[in-house]
């Protein structure tokens, strides 16, 4: 009897040893829904995070100051920053629509505009600004808009006088140099080396430096406000959290099978999406030629952006220490890499986007996916991408996944 019992115990022991790995594997698959550790790690890096925001805004000492956030908030909606007094930042970057240009104001201001105003959700997480990356900081981006004749169409002296007149009493610490601005001669009223250099040269070097310092404060305050313009969490982010926690029930309720299939395609290096659209904003901050440049209109590409960046009086090297400016110091100037290239945009909250690509050539995400499936390559045209091999049903899966990146949980 005891022999039988020992045999049974031994059999149970051996069976448990054999069965354990299978059981363990099945359990792991259940917890992680078939994702590998590498894939989960990759998804963690795509999960929304603002960890890097301080490092990316090192050149803005006002970035975390509450008074700068408040001043920036008022300036964002202030039509007095425009030459016409009719439009503000918020006219094109509509706060109620994900800070997108949903009404194509960019084109109404200038029907020939080569670029559309992009959305601002998560903009403080970017390394480069504008589609050609001609600004290396959020604060210098704002300054360029104020003086762009096709955008706010004002000039720095006009902007500084306006801000001092309206806000000096409310923000005395930020605008402590306003008294010096008030001592400037009344005429000329407006001046800028970019917009009206003749007037600009009428001021002394010290006066010009004061005006520039105040102008930079305007840009840094606007950037401080935009720190708060972040995308809310999406279903994808919650899905990643559930996977990391091993909560497969919650994960299954967050993404359906079609969306998961789309996510697998998105992460597949052979499909290629994640090569460029990586990081918490689904952009690697790179510039690539994706066959969207138009022959004869290449002047707005990264090649020109680099020239404008290096000539900008507000780039990091001219307003900071060289060691804090590796992006500019080591900027790629090789035209083989920059011609026809545009910045990789974020893929979060595409539902707000009225149009796609740098020139708004496509009205739907389906059309964009079709572009990557069959990019229009021409002889002698440098293109960084290869056709993405996607079957019709896979395009639908990818599209479903992209909708899970919208912040509104109902999407």
């Amino acid at each position, binding site marked *: 009897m005891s022999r039988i019992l020992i045999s049974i115990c031994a059999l149970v022991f051996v069976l448990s040893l054999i069965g354990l790995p299978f059981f363990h594997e099945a359990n792991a698959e259940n917890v992680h829904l078939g994702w590998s550790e590498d894939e989960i*790690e*990759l998804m963690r*890096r795509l999960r929304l995070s603002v960890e890097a925001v301080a490092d990316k805004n090192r050149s803005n000492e006002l970035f975390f100051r509450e008074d700068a956030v408040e001043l920036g908030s008022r300036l964002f909606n202030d039509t007095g920053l425009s030459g016409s007094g009719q439009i503000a930042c918020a006219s094109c970057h509509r706060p109620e629509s994900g800070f997108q240009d949903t009404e194509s104001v960019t084109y109404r201001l200038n029907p020939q505009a080569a670029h559309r105003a992009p959305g601002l959700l998560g903009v403080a997480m970017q390394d480069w600004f504008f589609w050609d990356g001609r600004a290396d900081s959020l604060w210098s981006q704002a300054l360029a808009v104020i003086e762009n004749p096709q955008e706010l169409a004002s000039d720095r002296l006009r902007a500084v006088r306006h801000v001092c007149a309206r806000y000096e009493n409310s923000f005395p610490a930020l605008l402590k140099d306003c008294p010096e601005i008030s001592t400037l001669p009344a005429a000329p009223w407006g001046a800028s080396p970019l917009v009206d250099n003749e007037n600009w040269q009428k001021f002394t070097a010290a006066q010009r430096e004061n005006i520039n310092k105040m102008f930079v404060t305007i840009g840094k305050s606007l950037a401080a406000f935009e720190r708060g313009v972040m995308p809310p969490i999406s279903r994808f982010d919650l899905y990643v959290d559930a996977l990391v926690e091993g909560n497969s029930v919650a994960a299954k309720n967050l993404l359906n099978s079609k969306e998961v299939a789309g996510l697998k395609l998105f992460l597949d*290096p052979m499909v290629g999406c994640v*090569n*460029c659209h*990586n*990081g918490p904003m689904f952009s*690697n*901050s*790179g*510039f*690539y030629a994706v066959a969207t440049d138009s022959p004869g209109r290449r002047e707005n590409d990264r090649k020109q952006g680099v020239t404008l960046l290096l000539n900008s009086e507000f780039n990091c090297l001219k307003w900071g220490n060289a060691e804090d400016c*590796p*992006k500019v*110091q*080591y*900027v*790629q*100037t*090789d035209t*083989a*890499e920059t011609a026809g290239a545009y910045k990789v945009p974020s893929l979060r909250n595409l539902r707000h986007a009225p149009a796609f690509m740098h020139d708004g050539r496509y009205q739907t995400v389906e059309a964009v996916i079709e572009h990557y499936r069959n990019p229009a390559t021409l002889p002698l045209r*440098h*293109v*960084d*991408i*290869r056709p993405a091999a996607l079957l019709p049903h896979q395009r639908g899966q990818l599209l479903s996944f992209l909708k899970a990146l919208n912040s509104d949980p109902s999407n």
Partner: protein
Amino acid sequence: MPFVLRYGLSKIFALLLCGVAFASVCAAAEKWEVTLDLPPLAVNQFYEGLLTVADSNGVGITGLRLQIRGRMPEHAHGLPTAPQITEKGQGRYSLKGLSFNMPGRWVIEILHDGETVLRQEYTVRF
């Protein structure tokens, strides 16, 4: 044919060139001991590296004007930044401004007078 596939036409062509026309140049390059120390690489960070160039006796070679080139064999583009190499003396050269914004296989080459003196492959991770 497998030999061609394994070593690639360009390498075979280069070997032939070395054997025929540029024996002295290639021999000079071959004698150099070139090393590049880099940490494990991930996307969207800046890296510094130390390059050393020494002759067959281990004596550092100074005064070289070295350049760097990088590319992804599976893609059509090169490095996202323009790294700079500066001489530190005694055959040591510092490499600064190296960055990658795409994961995968990268080939880094160090060039002297247009000739590749070091070719290394790296896998860049997310």
